[in-house]
């Protein structure tokens, strides 16, 4: 909690870096133990957008839980993370007993922000995700994409420099996902966030990331890292995105077939 509350974000001193060194995560003990992550090292620069890509079961989500501090690591270290970090999941996990604004305010309430200030900030954040007219709605009255916008606003309310996203658009249709990519890119740039974005959608990773990290499955290791030097704003259906995605898909396919065979 080194952030000065209420100060404009640009002036606030932020680390925003995430450095993982030889991170190992094992579940269980003895012969039945499962190694989810095996020596993952990753250096995430402040303000960068990193996509973690891999087949299911490669420990992508485990990695995020470790960075968030929701789970302890078996060995290795994670440094420079200012906690609590903000996090978003595939399901929006909005609380049905609160209104849309109430859900966003809750993040502020936990931090001890006063009522009037909460109201003001929540309205601001809903405006950021373009849901100003929906403050008094209940989550179930919104579409899936809108619910993820609210979840994003709630995550932003935490005012953390690091935002972890665990397949946040995985359950949405392609068109809605496309719109949310644009929104996320805009917000990321405006706020200078460090984003760690987990997905199994290769094109999505190339569309969004400065860097795409390919993880192997069982145990999870860093297989390849790709720097995405494509000009922003990108389109998910543009040729450069498609070409790089095809290259990564081949590598991913090889990795998957190695396991399936």
């Amino acid at each position: 909690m080194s952030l000065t509350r209420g100060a404009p974000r640009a002036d606030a001193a932020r680390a925003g870096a995430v450095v993982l060194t030889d991170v190992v995560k094992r579940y269980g003990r003895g012969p039945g133990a499962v190694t989810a992550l095996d020596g993952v090292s990753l250096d995430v620069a402040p303000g960068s957008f990193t996509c973690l890509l891999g087949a299911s079961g490669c420990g992508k989500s485990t990695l995020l839980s470790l960075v968030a501090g929701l789970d302890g690591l078996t060995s290795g270290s994670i440094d420079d993370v200012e906690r609590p970090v903000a996090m978003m999941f595939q399901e929006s996990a909005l609380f049905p007993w609160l209104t849309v604004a109430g859900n966003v305010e809750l993040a502020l309430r936990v931090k001890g922000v006063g009522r009037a200030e909460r109201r003001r900030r929540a309205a601001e954040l809903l405006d950021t995700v373009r849901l100003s007219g929906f403050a008094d709605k209940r989550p179930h009255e919104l579409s899936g994409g809108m619910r993820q916008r609210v979840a994003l606003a709630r995550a932003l309310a935490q005012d953390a420099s690091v935002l972890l996203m665990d397949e946040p658009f995985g359950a949405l249709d392609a068109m809605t996902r496309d719109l949310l990519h644009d929104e996320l890119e805009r917000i990321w740039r405006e706020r200078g966030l460090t984003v760690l974005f987990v997905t199994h959608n290769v094109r999505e990773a190339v569309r969004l990331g400065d860097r795409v990290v390919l993880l192997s499955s069982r145990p999870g290791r860093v297989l390849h890292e790709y720097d995405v030097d494509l000009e922003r704003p990108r389109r998910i259906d543009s040729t450069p995105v498609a070409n790089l995605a095809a290259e990564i898909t081949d590598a991913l396919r090889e990795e998957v077939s190695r396991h399936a065979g």
Partner: protein
Amino acid sequence: MPVEVKEPSRELSGLDELERTPATETRWGRFASRLWAGTWPKVLALALVIGAWQLVFLSGRWDPWVLPSPLATWQELAAYAATPGYWEAIVITMQRALTGFALSVAIGSVLGIAVARFKPLRAAIGSLITGLQTMPSIMWFPLAILLFKISESAILFVVVLGAVPSIANGIISGIDYVPPGWKRVGAVLGMRGFQLYRHVILPATLPSFVSGLKQGWAFAWRSLMAGELLVIVAGQGSIGALMQGAREFNDAPRVITWIVTVLVVGILVDAVFRFADNRIRSSWGLNQDQ
């Protein structure tokens, strides 16, 4: 400040705009048709019951002073309901019921949270609570009378014993089934211990808590009726006491009048719980298929 909800702007509407529920402009029309759909089967059922009763009465199997006709019972009910004694009895009984229920809610809630929270406590008394729930509350009266004599306390004791397990179980299962995703969000937002309970776990148990309350009320009400028939406190003309009195005077219409009264009270209270339950369900979006 209510903001006019405009049609969602273009940048908002992906394909998934289609999945939103349309605005409910026909709210009143829907309410009326739902009311009618809920009413006519009840009216029909009532007519059938009264018709069957009338037939049994006409068959002459029982003498009219044992089994009166529906009409005679109705006349008795109407005349009796015009006397203050009838209403006083209802007030006395409802006071007992509400006191017992309020006490049960307080004890049951604390007990439920404690059992859900502390593992050893659950191991110790978790199954005991369920066991108590299956026990007919009338079993407690001999002990209650020994402990508290013929008194209000004896009745209250049994009412509380009857209702507490249901209420506690409602909370326990509510806490057990809080979706893990919600708890994870709580943790991500930095909630610990009490805060997590206050902002996530307890609100999340609300539907389960309400169904526990509903069941708890049913047990409390049954225990109370059993108690009032057995434990007749001098000077307290409660429903049970007056009903027992009517039986002693072979006043069948009056006995049936009380049965009907108790039934009606039960239905009214159930309607209150159902209303609360429906409110929660619709504001949580749990019954969108209707």
